[in-house]
């Protein structure tokens, strides 16, 4: 494994006086695929959002892509956060495509504004990315006309357009109809195979088993267990992991992909 892309030491985070993350220590190496699972409200989204500075933490240290995002509980400046975020791709459960821009312009907006790319350059790159997610033919339409699965694939292409060093996914398939989940997971699998570093919050256990290098189980704002999927799914060490897996696996016995 190469150098750590994300390195987290004793991270804590509260909303008001409700502590949501407790003393989390974790690191992500280049080209690793990390899948984060855990019950609702366990702090998975908050954990992920700390990694690109969308949430401010007040304890611990977090380094990402060579930036020190949190140092001893102090956040880096807004301006440096912008630089960090341009190197960290984020994909949301609710897609958050820009509805007033067509698909291609959703993708070219940031590279043109931040990377100084010409329109032609940005559009050529954007079309290549759309091709990669299988949506080149949708370049000129507006997001409102796309299916959920298509929207999420465009959102992935939009994040990739900034050529991020790591991609964060917060339940990318949870808002999708079941028959559309596969096409999004397929794109994510391709990315993983190409060596993209990814941190993925998901309930898709089949995907985790197949693609993850490390599966992280969170509960009540702390990491309960982190292990390769083969180990975690077959011989979980912690009682809380076993209980969570039992709940999930009995709920969706349906096959994934």
């Amino acid at each position, binding site marked *: 494994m190469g150098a750590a892309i994300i390195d987290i030491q004793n991270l804590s985070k509260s909303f008001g006086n409700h502590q949501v993350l407790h003393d989390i220590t974790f690191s992500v190496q280049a080209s690793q695929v990390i899948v984060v699972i855990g019950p609702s409200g366990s702090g998975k989204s908050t954990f992920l959002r700390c990694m690109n500075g969308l949430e401010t933490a007040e304890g611990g240290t977090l380094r990402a892509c060579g930036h020190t995002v949190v140092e001893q509980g102090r956040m880096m400046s807004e301006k440096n956060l912008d630089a960090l975020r341009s190197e960290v791709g984020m994909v949301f459960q609710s897609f958050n495509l820009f509805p*007033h821009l067509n698909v291609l312009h959703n993708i070219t907006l940031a590279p043109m504004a931040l990377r100084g790319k010409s329109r032609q350059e940005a559009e050529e790159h954007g079309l290549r990315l759309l091709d990669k997610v299988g949506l080149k033919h949708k370049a000129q339409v507006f997001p*409102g006309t796309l299916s959920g699965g298509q929207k999420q694939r465009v959102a992935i292409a939009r994040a990739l357009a900034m050529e991020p060093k790591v991609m964060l996914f917060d339940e990318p398939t949870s808002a999708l109809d079941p028959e559309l989940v596969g096409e999004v997971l397929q794109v994510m699998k391709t990315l993983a195979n190409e060596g993209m570093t990814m941190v993925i919050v998901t309930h898709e256990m089949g995907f985790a088993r197949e693609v993850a290098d490390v599966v992280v189980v969170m509960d009540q704002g702390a990491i309960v267990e982190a292990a390769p999927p083969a180990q975690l799914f077959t011989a979980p060490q912690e009682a809380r992991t076993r209980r969570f897996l039992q709940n999930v696996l009995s709920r969706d016995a349906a096959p994934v992909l």
Partner: protein
Amino acid sequence: MNLDFSPVWEGWRALASGTLITIEITASALVLGCLLGLLIGLGRLNPKRTVIYGLCTTYLTLIRGTPLLVQLFILFFGLPHFGIQLPAYMCGIFGLGIYSAAYVSEIVRGSIQSVEKGQMEAARSLGLPHKLAMRKVILPQAFVRMIPALGNEFIALIKNSALVSLLTIADVMHEGEKIISVSYRSLEVYLAIAFIYLMLTSITTLILRRTEKVLRADGRV
């Protein structure tokens, strides 16, 4: 009762030039009101920036809490006491613009806040600084949502502009009253004036509807 519209026909030139003045003043006040309203609306987005927020809120309270007519009179009769003598025409534009800005600012703020939080998060996650995200992502969406409310505000402004006739400005209202003072045909002239305002407001409504339809095409929000 016999109606005699001949003074209206005979005075059509004056009424037409008055209508033009009404349009000029309203349109100028509109531009001023929108620009100022945008700034004040943006200033009231973040209560944590206490100075800017406080100033904008004070503006809003003062302007919305007092009659437009009083504000116009303060500009016209009050400012000269401080050695500031604005032409009546300017007082009309500033008075209406300042007044309208207060209402526009609330429309601006409301529609910006109605854009889903995820939009700003997505833009910031790409690395766009706050201001740029506002300009490229939030405002274009907020703008479309503003149109119906802005339309109502424009129409209110057109109607309110009749008050500037009291500042000696020769708008359509003022020209009408001059015709009445020589012809004594008040009902006919007021009916004619009402008709002219109705035309102005109807055309405005029509243009705004078209604009909104175009902007909302293609499945955009």
